[in-house]
């Protein structure tokens, strides 16, 4: 097969490329240039960062063609701006989902088809299983590297074309060993951390630059609007969080948590932890990987990147889905709510803001 491999320049996607080539496939490498590694000050300039250089070195060593794809503008519009806008709307976004959905699995996948590829492979830790009723998406063998939650929005059509060769790897050590076996220079390269587009880890600065109205200190209020404390910036607060509340962390003997964020007024709304949980929530932009029955599905839902899935019933609606939780919880608007049946992803969507509003 002719397979386009999305190469980040890291060890995972490099191993994918090397293995597919060793299996006899015609491998074509592609690296997305998502942002200028020299920073926003040099907007529009082009610059090959270390990761592009590494991806190219791997391709050169293995002897397959490699291309750098300019996706800066698309990434800026479809990921970074949406990321900042979501914060400005009081949500806690998941930019990696937007990036997988748009730049990677729509644009790059389209390019793969354009050049006559039969499939596109990535280094994501997730399993693609050919089931009796079509292709299924599952959690990987290595639960420490599970990326399935970030990939729930992959459509069935995209899934049919995609390959995730690392889903069966037992652990990262095995991947690095395989990289060494192939003689890849990236075998010992450290894993990438957090958000790829903020090099110093401070997404706060980035969002505040794009939405200056959100910058600066503000008030912490209770659900009645009473000022109970002050904070250094709304960007640091997510619904469900108990940290950084200072003296307001405990009021009238009750532990408090964030139940809402009003970025325009730079207000953080808190409520007693015990009474703020909700037992149902509404999700939008739902992607179904199964044919959902109208009466709904009994399954587990995961509402944060790292948390234990909770039992729930998910009922499809005209504009998304209604999720009824067995045990109340505190969902954060903008985060993904992914539906699982064991290791298999059934579907998922983004948590609506009203879900939190009803909690206050």
């Amino acid at each position, binding site marked *: 097969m*002719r397979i386009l491999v999305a190469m980040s320049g890291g060890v995972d996607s490099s191993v994918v490329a090397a293995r597919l080539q060793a299996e006899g496939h*015609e491998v*074509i490498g592609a690296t997305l*240039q998502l942002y200028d590694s020299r920073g926003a000050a040099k907007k529009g300039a*082009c*610059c*090959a960062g270390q990761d*592009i250089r590494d991806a*190219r070195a791997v391709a050169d060593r*293995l*002897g*397959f*063609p490699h*291309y*750098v*794809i*300019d*996706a800066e503008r*698309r990434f800026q519009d*479809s990921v970074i701006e949406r990321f900042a806008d979501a914060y400005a709307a009081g949500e806690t976004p998941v930019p990696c989902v937007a990036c997988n959905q*748009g*730049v990677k699995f*729509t*644009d*790059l996948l*389209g*390019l793969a*088809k*354009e*050049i*006559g590829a039969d499939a596109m492979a990535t280094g994501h830790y997730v399993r693609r299983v050919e089931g009796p009723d079509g292709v299924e998406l599952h959690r990987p063998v290595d639960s420490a590297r599970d990326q399935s939650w970030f990939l729930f929005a992959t459509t069935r059509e995209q899934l049919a074309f995609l390959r995730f060769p690392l889903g069966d790897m037992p652990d990262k050590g095995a991947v690095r060993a395989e990289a060494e076996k192939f003689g890849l220079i990236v075998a010992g390269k450290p894993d990438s951390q957090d958000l790829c587009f903020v090099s110093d880890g401070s997404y706060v600065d980035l969002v505040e630059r794009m939405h200056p109205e959100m910058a600066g200190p503000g008030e912490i209020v209770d659900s009645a609007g009473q000022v109970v404390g002050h904070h250094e910036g709304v960007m640091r607060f997510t619904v469900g969080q108990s940290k950084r509340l200072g003296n307001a962390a405990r009021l009238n003997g009750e532990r408090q948590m964030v139940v809402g964020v009003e970025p325009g007024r730079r207000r953080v709304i808190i409520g007693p932890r015990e009474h703020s949980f909700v037992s149902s929530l509404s999700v939008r932009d739902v992607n179904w990987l199964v044919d959902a029955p109208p009466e709904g599905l009994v399954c587990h839902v995961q509402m944060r990147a790292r948390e234990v899935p909770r039992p729930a019933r998910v009922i499809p609606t005209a504009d998304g889905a209604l999720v009824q939780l067995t045990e109340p919880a505190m969902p954060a608007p903008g985060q993904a709510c992914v539906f699982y049946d064991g290791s298999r992803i059934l579907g998922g969507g983004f948590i609506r803001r009203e879900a939190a509003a009803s909690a206050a």
Partner: protein
Amino acid sequence: MTAHTHSRDGQSRVVYLDANATEPLRPQARDALLEVADMTGNPSSVHRAGRMARAVLESARDTVAQMFEVEPLNCIFTSGGTEANVLAMHGLGQGRRFLVGATEHDAVRKGVPDGALVNWLPVTHNGQVELDAFEAALAADESPAFVCLMLANNETGVLHPLAEVAALCQRYGAHLHVDAVQAAGRMAFSVATIGAQSVAISGHKIGGPKGAGALLLAGPAPARVAPLFEGGGQEQGRRGGTQPLPAIAGLAAALKAAVETPRDLSPLRNRLEQAAVAAGAVVCGAEAPRLGNTTSLALPGRRAQGQLMRLDLANICVSAGSACSSGKVAFSHVLQAMGLDTLAGEAIRVSLPWNVQEQDIDRFIQAYVGMAQSASPVLGL
């Protein structure tokens, strides 16, 4: 492994149609380069070895100067086209306001000295400078202007109406600097015939080795040029640094070969173009006079990136926009300036090298038509 292992169509020979990025080395240039590569001397040294090197350097200078009809000492060797352009703009443009063509190469667009006033000269949809707007810009201010307009465009091959441009420059007392990097060796001209005060050329675009270029100056020698860096005062104090002799000897030999054995590539280019147009392509700048080896082919609705990859996988080398250090495909400012905004991300440049073969054109046509006829997904990239 060789570069050819990824060819799956069995046609392993690489078809190179990206001459405007760099020309294949001409055999005459190769001979000259190899001969000089073993010479030890520094042309600035007084001893025998130095004198031998100096003789090679000056002989190359004589050859280049003669080809472009300038005084030998008005041929300043540089590291290439970019440096020649920037040397002219910095060394001859002090205190002047700059009038720069919108479709100039980045070497010129980004070579304007810091703090200088710049007026960007608009072009017509054919890519030629708008003469009325140009004259208005010249007349807008009495202070002397420094005009930068290229002879042939690197992406489209379009030629500016330089006779009119030069006449206007003369009337308004403006300095005319011409970036002739793409035109040199591909069309007959001299510094005098185009009426420029300064002209930049590059060795590897003529079929010489990479690493040498020249700034050619009209008038009596040696014309004064403030150096970008003084170094040891080489090139009459106008360009510091030991001259790269093999590259310079190769440049002179390539230029001589190009001028003495000219080859009109336009019939081949036209055949290729007609087949592409029949397959749905639009030729950018088609109505203007153009360099015979160049065509800019836009395929509406098909991103340049995908076209480039597809052709490369068929072992056909072309380009899109101008080459960029990261290798990504940049949006074409040239086509944008021509008002072809949508096509700007959908055009590839095909530029035939001096040694192009008939069957190269056949191979290109076959691959291009196949590509144009294949299903075309809508891409966001």
